[in-house]
């Protein structure tokens, strides 16, 4: 369970959000919706350790996540809006690089696990391609597999449907539902209201439910 308590973020005098409270239960799919530029991405960047917060706490399964020091653990996996795959590695190497180097897994075990992930996302035939050879939707699934390979407790998506056509959007929805069945907790930042309603258990409206 992820609990965000009284979280406050300011840039100088500019308050992005104030005393934000939000709970995400295990296995839940939560969408955070609202127009662009109101701080949704800032919130998941704080969760992932890429930004600091000014006040409050984030507690994951009873343990405090450091929100001041920008230190990152791998409990929260993130799917970036433009995926940020490593262009110099093939899909399978993108997925296995962190398990091998960070978790010190053997490369055969990491590759095996990576192939399973790709298989479950219908991407096994793309394992040896480089990111530039993939479509937008395929890049996204590669990024999802890369994040899942580190067994995060929560998977956070930043605008997963931006720039995707309707067919690809439905594929993303399928992936989210598949992962939900496997018990993966997911937080989705989106301004796509229909998509949010299609995939999530609960929708958090950043525009109306957040104090500034």
């Amino acid at each position, binding site marked *: 369970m992820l609990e965000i308590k009284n979280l406050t973020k300011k840039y100088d005098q500019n308050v992005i959000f104030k005393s934000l409270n939000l709970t995400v239960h295990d296995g839940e799919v939560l969408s955070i919706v609202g127009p662009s530029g109101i701080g949704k991405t800032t919130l998941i960047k704080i969760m992932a350790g890429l930004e600091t917060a000014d006040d409050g706490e984030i507690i994951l399964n009873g343990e405090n996540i450091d929100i001041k020091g920008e230190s990152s653990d*791998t409990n929260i996996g993130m799917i970036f809006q433009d995926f940020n795959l*490593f262009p*110099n590695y093939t899909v399978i190497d993108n997925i296995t*690089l*962190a398990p091998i180097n*960070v978790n010190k897994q053997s490369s055969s075990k990491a590759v095996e696990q990576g192939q399973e992930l790709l298989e479950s996302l219908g991407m096994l035939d793309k394992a040896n391609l*480089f*990111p*530039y050879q993939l479509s937008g939707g395929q890049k996204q699934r590669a990024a999802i597999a890369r994040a899942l390979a580190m067994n995060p407790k929560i998977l956070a998506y930043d605008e997963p449907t931006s720039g995707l056509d309707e067919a690809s959007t439905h594929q993303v929805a399928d992936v989210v539902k598949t992962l939900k069945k496997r018990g993966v907790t997911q937080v989705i930042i989106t301004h796509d209201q229909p998509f949010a309603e299609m995939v999530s258990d609960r929708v958090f409206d950043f525009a109306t439910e957040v104090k500034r």
Partner: protein
Amino acid sequence: MSYLTTILPSLLAGLKTTLGVFFLTIIGSVPLGILVSLGMKSPYFTIRWLINGYIWIMRGTPLLLQLIFIYYGLGMMGIAFPRFEAAIIAFIINYAAYLAEIFRGGLQSVPRGQYDAAKVLGFSKIQTFFKIILPQVVKIVVPSFGNEVINLVKDTSLVYVIGLGDILRAGNIAASRDVTLMPYLLVGLIYLIMTAVVTLLLRRSETVLNTWR
């Protein structure tokens, strides 16, 4: 033809010096250039200030003058290096400054998101640099790096100023002794062969690096 075979041994002896300066400069200036380019992003003002001063001096004065200063100038101040070592030091610190600027440009072209992705996946700063950032920088800088390497092939001829016998000097001696331009033609040909080899190697590395984009 028989004339060429008589001067060839002295030219090849000069070539050894030329190649020695060339390879030792590459080996020394690449890692130093990377370090300096990282230092330019240092959070400490003093380090950035020192590095900018160093680059300003290296790029702002002729390499010929730097050679003279390091060999004769430092020699007069009691810091004496043998000729060859003095030449290597001058070339390495000069080329490292140019390469540092090239690497800095390469580092800046790697998108911020690559660092974010690496951080979220738990990579340390050192792993991020060597496994993720540096390979992308290498690909970006190969063309401009190649330019510097070809310049270096020809710049090695500057070592004559501190009395080192490189290939151009060997050709020079033969030409004035025998009153003919043939040695110069031969020397020119050897430089062309060296730059052709460098060009081919660079093309090949670009092809290899183009397996990804």
